[in-house]
């Protein structure tokens, strides 16, 4: 053993009296398993005084260090240290794992040399010593044991132990059982009984083997065999790491027991060496290549193909060493590699080429699986695009891809349904019906498709048809609550038609039918209210309206009454009076929330709705001040009111919320959006800065929706900016006058959004176009509008404001860049620089 640098000696108090400090320090060092340091510290202590506890400490430190060395395979060094331990601490050499190390070091004779000394030990120590020496006697050649007394316990059971080992190796269960039976529980070989049982069972019954192994005491004389069995019985994902703790003989035996062919052992050991730090895909790929020949059975190619998307830089190595990569495989690998790098723009062309290869190549077009794969890729592309859309709606490309996917794989009901739903939500009812017809031809009795047919019929105003279809759904799915509501609403809508046509008897029938389907209190109130409009007499109408208002409450009752009131020809005041609505009554939280939910179902810019809300303004203003809404209820109410351009009411509710949750970004946004949303350029600087601060706060709090909305509002407030680094895609470049003119010509010349967008896509380049498309959420209308606005803004700037700053005499210095908000993800080209002054009179006075 090489002599290592000694640690600094522990300070000792003069006069021989050792302070408590160094002794404690040595104990702490020993407990911390810093054995080398502990040895030096105890030695220093013992130089002053040979206290028994310090001798024990030194022996323990030597033991720990020797075991450390043995674990590293430094058996000779461990043995030398053990002998030093015996000399320095006056402890017997035959202790601990000394015999095991001797055997490992090939020193069987030296180990056996202890047998003579064993007889001189006190009787109680003899058994323990013989147990330690049992492995040495077991493996020793017979010649070396000639001098031993025949009645020595280590000799008595040796033959049985060797017979058990042989039986285990030959799989002779009967012989094994007989041999183990001959080993008594007092025998030095007793540990072999559970060990060899576990060994014989490890493959056929791992649980039994594990319970046999659990009976073997730790650090016994046959510990190497116990460790091997432990590793063998580890779960599939763990034994490789367990292999690291064994020596060479142990690893070999584990691999023997596992049945690892010799040709694959180098690969397994290579893998074992990499289990500490998880190897990267590139490292694993290289390792597989190195051991390519050992990996038989066609496993190497699929494995490397799985690794390639994570290690595309190894494509050449793959081509050079493995059977050729098909064009489709290569496109798939490159597409996945791009996706893993979060680069969908780069993935898309690869996916599209893969679709072409899978669906159009003569060799693959014949296989339905190839077409199905192509359809799956197209659906993935559509998903990728619709993820960028705030409402999940499909852009033109996604629609095309999904339609194409249905040609390749028409059996995918979900895609049929998705296309129909998207067309319906976009108001393309003709297209929705045509898609629906195609889908229902294939799936005639499919409940979700029938339900969608109900929705399409309702959207088209075909209420009778909707009710009929809904009943078909209920035959297939009797407890579908959504359809029950849809049927009820279809009857309500039909009843309204009849009321408008003064066909009161028919209206009543429809309302009676609706009442059987609609169960909630609000729905029942609405039925009652419409029954009033269909009543035979004024007195009956008044009575029904009173009942309806009592059921709905004053706010919701008044709202529905006024919304439906247009068909009665009565003035609002009169109608409310006849129904007994008290507009001074305080609305409840439930009514206010229900009203907001109702508002969300109505289309925007409804003139009749504006008049109704004007009539209810006082009631809602009181509600804003008095009601104790939860945060989510406040958001719901504010958003519903803002959606219907009720700015003053929105601000009332937002301010009430801000009193309870000061500076909560969502309410700051709603307040500002209500005040400046329609005219963002009027936003004063201090308000812009406040929004800028809450934008950061929203981002920090993970409220991405509010952050995006704030970013959009800030961008609108900041107006066009003349900086280059304002978030515009670099690919767009500077919009020159000639380019803008061309683009404007293109818009005029093109026959609609699709044509315009196709031109824009070609002109801008795919990368910039796709980025813009994603930024506006994938909606083609918004994209076309955003592109047109961009061009108009740029044209304004170039023609009227050269240079823009010079045209604003009151311009304040630009705030420091750190004040600029970070653009939220997926947000359009938002201006991140606040305006010099947000009110620009000279710009808008004209």
């Amino acid at each position, binding site marked *: 053993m090489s002599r290592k640098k000694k640690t600094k000696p522990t300070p000792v108090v003069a006069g021989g009296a050792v302070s408590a400090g160094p002794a404690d320090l040595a104990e702490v060092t020993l407990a911390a398993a810093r054995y080398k340091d502990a040895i030096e510290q105890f030695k220093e202590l013992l130089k002053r005084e040979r206290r028994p506890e310090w001798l024990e400490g030194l022996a323990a430190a030597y033991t720990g260090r020797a075991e450390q060395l043995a674990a590293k395979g430094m058996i000779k060094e461990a043995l030398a240290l053990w002998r030093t331990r015996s000399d320095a601490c006056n402890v017997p050499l035959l202790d601990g794992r000394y015999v095991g190390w001797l*055997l490992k070091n090939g020193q069987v004779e030296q180990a056996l040399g202890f047998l003579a000394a064993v007889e001189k030990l006190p009787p109680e120590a003899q058994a323990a010593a013989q147990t330690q020496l049992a492995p040495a006697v077991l493996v020793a050649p017979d010649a070396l044991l000639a001098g031993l007394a025949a009645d020595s316990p280590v000799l008595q059971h040796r033959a049985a132990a060797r017979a058990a080992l042989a039986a285990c190796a030959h799989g002779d269960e009967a012989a094994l059982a007989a041999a183990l039976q001959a080993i008594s529980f007092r025998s030095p070989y007793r540990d072999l009984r559970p060990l060899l049982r576990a060994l014989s069972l490890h493959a056929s019954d791992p649980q039994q083997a594990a319970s046999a192994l659990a009976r073997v005491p730790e650090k016994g004389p046959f510990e190497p065999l116990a460790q091997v069995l432990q590793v063998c019985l580890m779960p599939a994902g763990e034994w490789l790491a367990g292999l690291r703790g064994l020596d060479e003989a142990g690893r*070999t*035996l584990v691999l023997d*027991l596992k049945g690892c062919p010799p040709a694959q052992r180098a690969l397994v050991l290579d893998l074992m060496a990499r289990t500490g730090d998880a190897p990267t895909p590139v490292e694993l790929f290289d390792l597989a290549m190195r051991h390519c020949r050992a*990996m038989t059975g066609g*496993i190497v190619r699929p494995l490397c193909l799985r690794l390639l998307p994570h290690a595309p830089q190894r494509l050449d190595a793959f081509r050079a060493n493995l059977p050729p990569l098909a064009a489709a495989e290569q496109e798939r690998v490159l597409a996945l590699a791009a996706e893993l790098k979060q680069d969908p723009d780069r993935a898309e062309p690869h996916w599209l080429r893969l679709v072409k290869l899978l669906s159009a190549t003569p060799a693959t077009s014949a296989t339905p699986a190839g077409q199905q794969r192509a359809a799956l890729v197209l659906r993935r592309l559509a998903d990728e695009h619709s993820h960028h859309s705030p409402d999940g709606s499909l852009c033109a490309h996604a629609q095309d891809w999904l339609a194409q996917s249905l040609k390749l794989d028409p059996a995918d009901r979900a895609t049929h349904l998705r296309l129909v739903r998207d067309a319906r939500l976009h108001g393309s009812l003709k297209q929705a019906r045509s898609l629906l017809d195609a889908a229902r031809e294939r799936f005639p009795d499919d409940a979700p498709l029938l339900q969608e047919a109900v929705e399409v019929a309702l959207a088209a105003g075909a209420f009778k048809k909707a009710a009929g279809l809904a009943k078909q759904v209920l035959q297939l799915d009797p407890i579908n609550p959504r359809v029950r509501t849809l049927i009820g609403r279809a009857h309500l809508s039909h009843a309204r038609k009849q009321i408008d046509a003064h066909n009161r008897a028919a209206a009543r029938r429809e309302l009676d039918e609706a009442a059987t389907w609609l169960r909630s209190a609000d729905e029942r109130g609405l039925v009652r209210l419409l029954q009033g409009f269909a009543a035979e007499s004024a007195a009956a109408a008044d009575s029904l309206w009173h009942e309806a208002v009592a059921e709905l409450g004053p706010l919701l009752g008044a709202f529905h009454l006024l919304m439906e009131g247009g068909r009665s020809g009565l003035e609002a005041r009169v109608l409310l009076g006849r129904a007994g609505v008290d507009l001074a009554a305080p609305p409840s939280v439930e009514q206010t929330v229900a009203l907001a939910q109702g508002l969300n179902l109505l289309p925007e810019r409804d003139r009749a709705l504006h008049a109704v809300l004007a009539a209810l303004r006082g009631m809602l203003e009181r509600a804003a001040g008095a009601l104790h809404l939860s945060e989510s209820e406040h958001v719901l109410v504010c958003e519903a009111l803002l959606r219907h351009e009720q700015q003053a009411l929105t601000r009332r509710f937002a301010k009430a919320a801000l009193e309870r949750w000061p500076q909560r970004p969502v309410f700051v946004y709603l307040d500002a959006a209500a005040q400046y949303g329609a005219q963002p350029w009027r936003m004063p600087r201090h308000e812009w800065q406040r929004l800028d601060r809450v934008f950061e706060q929203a981002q920090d709090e993970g409220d991405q929706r509010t952050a995006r909305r704030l970013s959009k509002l800030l961008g609108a407030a900041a107006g066009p900016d003349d900086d280059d680094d304002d978030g515009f895609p670099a690919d767009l470049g500077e919009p020159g006058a000639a380019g803008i003119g061309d683009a404007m010509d293109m818009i005029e010349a093109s026959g609609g959004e699709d044509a315009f967008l196709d031109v824009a896509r070609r002109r801008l380049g795919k990368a910039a176009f796709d980025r813009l498309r994603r930024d506006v959420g994938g909606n083609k209308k918004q994209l076309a509008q955003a592109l047109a606005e961009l061009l108009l803004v740029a044209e304004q700037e170039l023609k009227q404001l050269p240079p823009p700053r010079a045209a604003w005499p009151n311009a304040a210095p630009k705030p420091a860049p750190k004040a600029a908000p970070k653009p939220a993800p997926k947000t359009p080209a938002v201006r991140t620089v606040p305006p010099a002054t947000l009110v620009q009179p000279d710009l808008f006075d004209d």
Partner: protein
Amino acid sequence: MTDPYRQLGVPETADDETIRAAYLAAIRACPPERDRQRFEQVRAAYEAIASQPQRLAHALFDTSLVTAEDLLEVLSAGWQAARPTEAALYRLLGGHD
């Protein structure tokens, strides 16, 4: 182990019924109250390959990372457990040739 086929112990050519039978057997052997993690793995594996379109999608889009343990599992799939030789046992216990 990330390969759903190996999780369920079925070949890559297995059909819906075989996969479902393997899944049911696996969750019977390992209900959630006994080993939640294993149960989740089995369920995730089944959801990945339960139907033919899902199997095709898995083959096309799976990008789960391959680990050293996965590689070893692929490699050891063809191994047959063997008995030890006497020589290997003696060598392990300290005997030398």
